[in-house]
């Protein structure tokens, strides 16, 4: 007997809004969080814009003790903590507990520790001053740093796992949390992901020539998924968090319910049949989407909205084709589809969780957020699906089921099916 799983809390640190009220306002109104970065000009990057949250470091004192804050350097950890603790509070739970929450676990993902913070470590070691590093480096360098800070602050006592699957990390974390509850291993899972694109990671993407470089003077127009003039993605940073609960457990404590997770799938195209380290095997993508539908016991016609991966690279057209093939829907019959990346850029490991927060909000408040910078949709896309499927303004509409997918380097895929709670 498997359990139904619902979303009871949300938290977000996004380039276009920190905290759910600001983020909700931004996505309803198509507000961009992409800004010009003077530092990237100094560094001779080709792309000089980014989605960087207006994060006030001092406000971390609202989340952790001053002893913990002293010595905290990892920006990804800070983002993850803020989003996760906001989601926890939003679900109606207290931060303080003496007994661990044995029924609650955590799956929180990320890509890499804050390399800028780690640079200071490297310099000290190279200067033969390793003795001066202190006690706080290891916990922030380890991949499980973010989950350790979150679970330690909240006293989470069930499975605590750090996942990493490049750009599919966030939706995969939510899927894993969902599976633990569904199979009865936990009553509640705090799920999500965090990413801080520091200058070193940014530079490495810049060198791959996959970033937007023609809109440095117009940062808000730089992220253009599905547009004919899309010329690469805009790196973004932040974190998203969702509290998932066993439905009966949530009902028993009168928790607010935003939406239900119906199912999902995570797979890999095996870097075969056209799939590579950086490109998706379409067969793998289509299988992932179709398996998500099967696990959710819905048919292809029931999807009202797709929250795409859609990064604003030449992979967008292929992604639309894969969705169309997976759902056997084209033209006017295709669901509405949007890309949050048009407003916040591509938050890599955090993309899936921030976009899932947006998807849940669209279900809870019955709207579809706009695609911005889509005044010139790619004809190869509109030859397959109707231009009416690509909203450029917010739409108020009945939204019952949303498919949320992300695809990452390594040819990894994750697809979640989210539904209105009935």
């Amino acid at each position: 007997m498997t359990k139904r799983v619902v979303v009871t809390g949300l938290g977000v640190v996004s380039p276009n809004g920190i905290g759910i009220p600001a983020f909700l306002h931004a996505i309803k109104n198509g507000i961009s969080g992409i800004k010009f970065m003077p530092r990237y000009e100094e560094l001779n990057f080709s792309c000089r814009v980014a989605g960087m949250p207006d994060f006030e470091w001092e406000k971390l004192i609202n989340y952790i003790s001053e002893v913990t804050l002293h010595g905290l350097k990892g920006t990804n950890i800070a983002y993850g903590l803020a989003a996760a603790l906001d989601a926890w509070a939003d679900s109606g739970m207290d931060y303080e507990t003496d007994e661990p929450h044995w029924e609650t676990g955590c799956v929180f993902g990320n890509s890499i520790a804050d390399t800028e913070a780690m640079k200071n470590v490297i310099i000290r070691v190279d200067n033969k001053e390793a003795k001066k590093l202190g006690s706080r480096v290891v916990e922030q360098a380890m991949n499980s740093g973010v989950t350790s800070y979150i679970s330690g602050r909240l006293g989470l006592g069930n499975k605590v796992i750090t996942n990493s699957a490049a750009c599919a990390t966030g939706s995969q974390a939510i899927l894993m949390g969902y599976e633990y509850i569904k199979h009865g291993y936990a009553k509640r899972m705090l799920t999500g992901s965090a990413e801080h694109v520091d200058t070193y990671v940014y530079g490495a993407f810049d060198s791959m020539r996959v970033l937007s470089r023609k809109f440095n003077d117009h940062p808000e127009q730089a992220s253009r998924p599905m547009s004919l003039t899309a010329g690469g993605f805009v790196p973004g940073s932040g974190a998203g968090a969702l509290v998932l609960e066993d439905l009966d457990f949530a009902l028993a404590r009168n928790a607010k319910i935003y939406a239900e997770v119906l199912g999902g799938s995570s797979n890999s195209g095996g870097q075969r049949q056209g799939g590579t380290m950086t490109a998706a095997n379409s067969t793998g993508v289509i299988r992932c989407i179709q398996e998500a539908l099967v696990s959710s016991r819905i048919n292809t016609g029931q999807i009202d909205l797709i929250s795409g991966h859609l990064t604003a690279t030449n992979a967008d057209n292929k992604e639309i084709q894969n969705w169309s093939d997976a759902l056997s829907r084209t033209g006017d019959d295709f669901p509405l589809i949007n890309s949050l990346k048009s407003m916040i850029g591509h938050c890599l490991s955090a993309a899936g969780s921030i976009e899932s927060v947006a998807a849940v909000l669209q279900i809870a408040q019955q709207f579809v957020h706009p695609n911005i910078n889509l005044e010139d949709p790619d004809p190869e896309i509109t030859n397959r699906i109707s231009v009416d499927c690509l909203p450029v303004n917010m739409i108020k509409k009945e939204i019952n089921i949303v498919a949320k997918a992300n695809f990452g380097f390594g040819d990894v895929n994750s697809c979640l099916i989210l539904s209105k709670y009935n």
Partner: protein
Amino acid sequence: MTRTEILNELKKVFAPYTTNKELLNSINDDTDLIRDLKINSANLVDIIIDAENKYNIEIDFDAADKMINVGSCIDVIREKLNQKNVEYR
């Protein structure tokens, strides 16, 4: 540098690592860093590094092991300062 002067300076060194600010103001030689000030044992390393930087001294492993309460911290710091042949008395 007198014991009292070192004690007053040590309060600033300990401050980032304890949430018990009231007790910090009234520490004496017998105050235990872990038991009384509730300092995380891992943070003792950070306190030693901060003290090294503050007094421009080097606290070796054997000396660090002695730094359990405020009095032994002052002893170690005074000893290391004296080893530098600096006149602090």
